[in-house]
C-alpha cells in the first residue's frame, strides 16, 4: 500500500526537502508567464529583424565616420566589432581581383592572398604591440586596423575608375597621388587610436609595422593593372 502510494505520487518524497545553508544555490525558479516585463530593456529577442540589422549597421557606419575624421575618441575601441573590417577586406579583395588575369601570368594578387595579407598582417601588428607592452586588447586592435583600411579601399575604387579612362603616365600620376594620400590617412588614423595605448617612448616601434602594412596594401593597389 505504501509502495502503491509512492508509485502514484512519485515526487512525494521531495516535498519536504530542505537545502542546507552552506551550499550556494543559484538559478532562476520563476515560471515564465507570457513575456517577463522585467527583462524587456535587456532582451532583444523580440524586436523585428530589421531593427537588429539596422542597429549593427549603424554601429559600423558610426565607426566609419570615426575613421574618416580621426580624433582621439574611444568609440572604435569601446565597442569593437569585426563586421566593418570583413566588409572592407572583401570589397578590397574583389576590387583587386580582376587584375592581370592572363592564364599563365599569376602575378596579380588573388582574392585569398589579399585576405591572408590583411588578416595575418593585422594579427602580427597586434601581437607586436601587445609584446611591446600595449594595453589594448587583441580584438580591439584588429578592429582598429581593419577599419583604417577604409581610405585605401576608397582609393582602390578611385583607381579603378581612373583606369577605365586609360593607363598612361597621367593616370599613373593621379593614382600615385591618390594612393599616397590615402596611405598617409590610414596610417595617421590608426596611430591616432593605437599609439595611445603604448608607453610614450615606444610609439615609434609600434607605428613602423603599421606603416609597412599599409605600404604593402598601397603597393598592391598602385600596381594593379586591369586585364586587357
Amino acid at each position: 500500500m505504501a509502495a502503491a502510494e509512492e508509485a502514484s505520487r512519485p515526487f512525494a518524497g521531495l516535498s519536504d526537502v530542505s537545502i542546507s545553508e552552506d551550499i550556494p544555490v543559484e538559478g532562476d525558479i520563476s515560471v515564465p508567464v507570457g513575456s517577463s516585463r522585467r527583462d524587456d530593456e535587456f532582451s532583444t529577442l523580440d524586436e523585428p529583424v530589421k531593427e537588429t540589422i539596422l542597429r549593427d549597421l549603424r554601429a559600423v557606419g558610426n565607426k566609419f565616420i570615426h575613421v574618416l575624421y580621426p580624433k582621439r575618441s574611444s568609440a572604435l575601441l569601446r565597442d569593437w566589432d569585426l563586421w566593418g573590417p570583413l566588409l572592407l577586406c572583401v570589397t578590397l579583395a574583389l576590387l583587386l581581383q580582376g587584375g592581370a588575369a592572363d592564364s599563365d601570368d599569376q602575378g596579380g594578387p588573388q582574392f585569398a592572398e589579399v585576405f591572408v595579407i590583411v588578416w595575418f598582417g593585422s594579427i602580427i601588428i597586434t601581437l607586436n604591440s601587445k609584446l611591446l607592452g600595449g594595453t589594448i586588447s587583441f580584438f580591439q586592435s584588429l578592429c582598429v586596423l581593419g577599419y583604417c583600411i577604409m581610405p585605401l579601399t576608397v582609393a582602390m575604387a578611385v583607381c579603378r575608375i581612373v583606369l577605365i579612362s586609360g593607363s598612361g603616365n597621367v593616370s599613373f600620376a593621379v593614382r600615385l597621388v591618390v594612393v599616397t594620400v590615402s596611405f598617409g590617412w590610414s596610417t595617421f588614423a590608426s596611430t591616432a587610436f593605437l599609439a595611445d595605448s603604448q608607453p610614450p617612448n615606444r610609439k615609434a616601434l609600434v607605428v613602423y609595422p603599421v606603416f609597412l602594412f599599409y605600404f604593402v596594401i598601397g603597393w598592391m593597389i598602385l600596381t594593379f593593372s586591369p586585364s586587357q
Partner: protein
Amino acid sequence: MSAGSGSRNTNTEPWGSFDDNLIQGGGSAVIDMENMDDTSGSSFEDMGEMHQRMKEEEEVAAEAAATEDDSAEDGEFLGMKGLKGQLGSYCEVWQAGKRQASRAFNLYANIDILRPYFDVEPVQVRNRLIESMIPVRMINFPQKIAGELYGPLMLVFTLVAILLHGMKTSGTVIREGTLMGTAIGTCFGYWLGVSSFIYFLAYLVNAQITMLQMLSLLGYGLFGHCAVLLITYNIHFHFLFYVLWLLVGGLSTLRMVAALLSRTVGQTPRLLLCGTLSLLHMLFLLYLHFAYHKIVEGLLDSLEGPNLAPMQRVARDVPELNTTLRILGALPRAQ
C-alpha cells in the same frame, strides 16, 4: 580546502615521491653557458608551468571536495540519484577536458614567453642597426650579441616590402605561387633557415652561441641587404650594384663573422662556420638582385630615350655578366 592545497602531500612512496620538487620549482644547479649573457627569459617558462600546476592542483582539490559533498546529498533525493550520477560524470568529463584544453592553451599560446625579446627602446634599435655595419676587431673574447627579436623581425618585413617593390617595377613573372607568397617565403625562409643551419653547425663545432643570438645576428645583418636593394632596385646600374654588394654586403658579413669568430675555438671550426655564413649571406644578396629583378627595357626606353641606351647595352650584353648569371642559374629562370 583552499588552505591545504599549497602544502598538499602527494607522497605515495615511503621515501618521498618526485612531486615535491615539481611543486617547489627546484631549479637546476648547473649554470648553463647558454644563458651566460643571454637576455632570454627561460625562467619564464618554468615559472609559468609551476604556477599553472599549482593552480590546477587547487582546482582539482576543489572539484574533488565539491563532488564528494554533492554525492553525499544525492542520497536524499528519491529516484534522482541515478540521473544526478550520470550528469555528474558527464560534468566531470567536460571539466577535465576543459582543464586540459585551457592548460595547453595557456602553455603554448602564452605570448608572454616572447615578451622579454621585444623589450627594446627605439634608440637601442637604431644603435644596433648602425652597429650591424661596423665590424668589431676583438675576436679573442666573446663579443656581446643582443638577444632581441623586434629589430630582426621588422627588418625581414622591410625586406619583403622592398622585394615586392622590386619585383613589380621590373615585371617579374612568377609561374607558380604569387608575388607576395614568394617574397615572404624567401625572406622568412632565409632568416629562419640559415639561422637554424648556422646554429646547427655551431652546435657541431661547439661554438658559444644560442639560437636567439643567431637569429638576432642574422636578422640585423639583413639591414645591409635592405639598403643595397632599396638603392639598386631604383637605380639600375650593375656596376653600382657590384660595388655596393662588396662594400655594404661585405661590411655586414664581416660584422657577423667577427662575432662568430670571437665565440669559436679552433682553426677548422672557425673556417667552416664563418666561411659558410659569409658565402650564404653574400650569395643571398646576389640572388635577390638578379633573380627578382629584370631590367624592363621598354620602360627605360620610353623614359630616358637615347641617353640611357649605351648603359642598357652594357648591362645586357656584358659577357661576364651573362656568364655569372648562367653560373648562378638565374638566367635560365629569368627567361
